[in-house]
């Protein structure tokens, strides 16, 4: 048996491995130079494809199906808006109760509105891009919120005109929070969803607001569902953002430097 034939392809594999590792090292050492080169055209392509699909739909070629789809979409958006408003009302009420107890008022930090310029489903790390960057005074670590003030995540990479947002409930992330006064730890599941365990029998309702001291007691999610089992001492609580990450078109970025 010829050993040379068995090792024939391995030189190519070694070259590919070394090349990949070198590219990754260059990107890491350069502070993300290569990933910015990759992201720029992809971001532009993503925005162009969305605009193209909207123009094709506007031609009316798929009018009958499109009319139903548009109505369906409008109704879903209205439902999402009503759910988010209800959650925001609950959050405001809870905050009001806290303020009455401690007699302290926190001012809402200033910020800017930024559009979501990438798919929110494609990332396996719970990240997505927004169309604001250094030119808009966005800083690393800036908070990203929904319009109703629920924390979505933080800015973890800043380019000139776009920034990368890492979701609070990214897969594998753990977030300390408070639910009905009880401390909990939320395990992120991605897509604005998380899960936690609370003692069985703890009074909970779907829609209860979850806050986090990491963000000054601001709301981070609501209770989506509660699952109990007579065989377990804990109840599994599904936590979610009141607005799905996929439906976000715009987010609010707050930072000390923003006007």
């Amino acid at each position, binding site marked *: 048996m010829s050993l040379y034939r068995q090792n024939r392809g391995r030189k190519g594999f070694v070259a590919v491995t070394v090349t990949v590792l070198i590219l990754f090292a260059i990107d890491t050492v350069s502070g993300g130079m290569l*990933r910015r080169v990759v992201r720029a055209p992809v971001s532009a392509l993503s925005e162009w494809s969305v605009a193209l699909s909207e123009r094709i739909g506007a031609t009316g070629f798929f009018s009958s199906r499109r009319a139903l789809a548009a109505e369906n979409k409008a109704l879903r958006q209205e439902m999402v808006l009503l759910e988010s408003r209800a959650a925001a009302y609950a959050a405001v009420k809870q905050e009001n109760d806290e303020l009455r107890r401690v007699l302290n008022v926190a001012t809402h930090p200033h910020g800017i509105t930024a559009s979501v310029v990438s798919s929110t489903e494609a990332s396996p790390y719970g990240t997505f891009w927004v169309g604001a960057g250094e030119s808009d005074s966005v800083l690393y670590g800036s908070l990203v919120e929904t319009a109703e003030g629920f924390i979505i995540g933080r800015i*973890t990479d800043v380019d000139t005109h776009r920034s990368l947002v890492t979701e609070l409930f990214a897969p594998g992330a753990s977030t300390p929070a408070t639910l009905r006064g009880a401390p909990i730890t939320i395990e992120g599941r991605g897509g604005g969803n998380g899960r936690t365990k609370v003692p069985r029998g703890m009074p909970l309702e779907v829609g209860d607001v979850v806050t986090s001291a990491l963000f000054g007691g601001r709301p981070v999610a609501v209770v989506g569902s509660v699952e109990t089992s007579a065989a377990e001492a804990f109840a599994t609580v599904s936590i979610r953002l009141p607005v799905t990450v996929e439906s976000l078109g715009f987010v609010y970025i707050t930072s000390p430097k923003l006007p």
Partner: protein
Amino acid sequence: MNISPLFRILVAFFGFISACALSPMFTIAAMLVLSVRYRAWEVPFIGLFMDFLWLPPGFAVLPLFTLGGLILLWALEPLRREFLFS
């Protein structure tokens, strides 16, 4: 007509496109299909592309897709050689 090279090109192209806009499961599927069927050097580059697009900077999160692509490239070579396709 041998469609195998065309199939490989299409699957690799789909892998890159799915990294941009589709669920990560599609990208994983493309990487798996390429790794099983071919001695596909493009698989680690698909993984690297995925990580360049979505991986947060720093060392808090491992570049799973880059590492996964390299593992698929190397780990499936004995399988490809002995049991599947030459």
